[in-house]
């Protein structure tokens, strides 16, 4: 039998291979044509948290290393929510109170450093980033903290690391739920949660500052008196020297915290200049900074805007209940209150930002309201929990 020419055979073989390969490729392409859409349906596009407004819920594992403070390493779990407002967010408490941050990219939330009350002392937290996965299933972060306090621990350093998981997927990835626009109150309440929490840490620091200053002033007065009587100043006791050092520390912390808190409130005031809580809290903040005219301006804006009717009534009702009065006293039923009213100079026309008259030698209403305080009875629940909660702002 004659063998076919080698070349022909080879040619035939090659042609057959190409035909096979073409068919295989076609099949592969057809398969891909069906697979890719299926794959697209089962793999969601990457998510960016900085485009979301709303609340996300997480199960967070928190590991706190207190070995530098004579303690151990503890791990706990808790349910934590995050309030999102596009490029900013407030993470719920994972050990040092709520934290407000800004997204520096789609899924990296930057929390700036801050100092928080950590009774009996305080802790200065480092800045840190929280990294979220693009499928919304997890996040992780870690920060260090420096504790200082009057207890036996004194000063020490530790770390807190945390990771959160979420089995719900990205917002809107499950059933389609009707989009309900948050009411303005809800919207601003979520923005105010962070700075308000910071303010509640800040105000006790101001109280401590004022107490230390008072103690130093009392000593100085006694020392000056001694000088007048004997020609000699008193020797400064160690606790006064310590008070001076602590006072300087507090002043530095207050300066840093104050500006961060104010930035948080200004984000709301830019959009809602008459927001009651933002104005009222800013009034407290400015008062604590000694800016009485500006503080009173915020207070009057809070009290005089249309929304304040209910809040003002709540404050009055709370004051009355806290002091066992039937009603908030008025000039009509109290000689004492009538006298207060008579003692107050006539109010100037003050609106937010208006300066006091430079030529006036009489204290204006603003000056006399310098020490406005709001007392909230611990036994009374104020109807709007974000408004004036059960904290005493007294000095």
């Amino acid at each position, binding site marked *: 039998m004659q063998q076919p020419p080698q070349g022909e055979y080879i040619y035939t073989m090659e042609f057959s291979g190409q035909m096979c390969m073409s068919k295989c490729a076609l099949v592969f392409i057809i398969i891909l044509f069906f697979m890719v859409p299926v794959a697209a349906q089962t793999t969601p596009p990457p998510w960016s948290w900085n485009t979301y407004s709303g609340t996300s819920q997480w199960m967070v594992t928190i590991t706190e290393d207190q070995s530098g403070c004579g303690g151990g390493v503890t791990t706990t779990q808790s349910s934590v929510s995050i309030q999102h407002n596009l490029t900013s967010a407030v993470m719920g408490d994972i050990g040092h109170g709520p934290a407000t941050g800004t997204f520096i990219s789609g899924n990296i939330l930057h929390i700036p450093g801050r100092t928080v009350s950590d009774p009996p002392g305080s802790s200065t937290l480092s800045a840190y980033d929280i990294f979220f996965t693009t499928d919304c299933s997890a996040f992780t972060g870690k920060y260090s903290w420096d504790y200082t306090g009057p207890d036996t621990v004194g000063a020490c350093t530790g770390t807190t690391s945390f990771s959160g998981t979420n089995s719900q997927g990205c917002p809107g990835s499950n059933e389609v739920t009707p989009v309900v626009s948050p009411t303005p109150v809800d919207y601003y309440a979520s923005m105010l949660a962070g700075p308000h929490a910071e303010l509640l840490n800040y105000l006790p620091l101001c109280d401590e500052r004022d107490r230390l200053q008072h103690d130093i002033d009392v000593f100085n007065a006694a020392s000056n008196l001694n000088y007048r009587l004997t020609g000699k100043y008193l020797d400064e006791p160690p606790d006064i020297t310590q008070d001076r050092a602590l006072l300087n520390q507090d002043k530095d912390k207050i300066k840093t915290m104050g500006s961060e808190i104010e930035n948080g409130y200004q984000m709301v005031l830019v959009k809602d200049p008459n927001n009651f809580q933002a104005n009222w809290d800013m009034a407290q903040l400015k008062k604590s900074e000694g800016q009485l005219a500006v503080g009173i301006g915020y207070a009057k804006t809070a009290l005089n805007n249309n929304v304040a009717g209910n809040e003002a009534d709540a404050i009055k009702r709370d004051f009355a209940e806290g002091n066992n*009065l039937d009603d908030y006293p008025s*000039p009509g039923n*109290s*000689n*004492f209150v009538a*006298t*207060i009213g008579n003692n107050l100079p006539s109010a100037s026309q003050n609106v937010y930002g208006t300066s006091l008259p430079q030529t006036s030698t009489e204290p204006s209403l603003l000056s*006399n309201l310098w*020490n406005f305080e709001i007392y909230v009875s611990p036994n009374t629940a104020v109807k709007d929990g974000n408004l004036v909660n059960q904290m005493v702002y007294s000095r």
Partner: protein
Amino acid sequence: MTAMFLSGLVLLTLFAGCVSNSPNSASQNAIVQEQSAFIAAAKNCTDTTVTITDAVGTFRYTSSDNCVFTKTLVRLNQSEMQKMKTMLEGKNMTCLYTKGNFDPRLVTSLVGGIEYCSGDLKDDITNLMLFT
């Protein structure tokens, strides 16, 4: 005619004298004098205590030789409602000042100068100022 005129003048003078020497006016003068005396002592950081009753109630004012002023509401006027008395009576406030710089309004007014004081009395007064 002249006699009638003179009689009227005498009566008018007597009447004016009676008015000027009425109990209210006399007591008001006494209050002012007591306040002035205390203010002068306080300015000098002199150790002194005085209790003065005015239209609001009875206040005890104390200044010390290290320039610390204390104002105590001892008793409110009888016309004040009982719950206000319960709330306010006995409360005080303390104010530090420097020699020669005592604010007289701390004595002559309920609200003047209290921004630099501390204490329950000050807290209540400022809360009552807020909506007045």
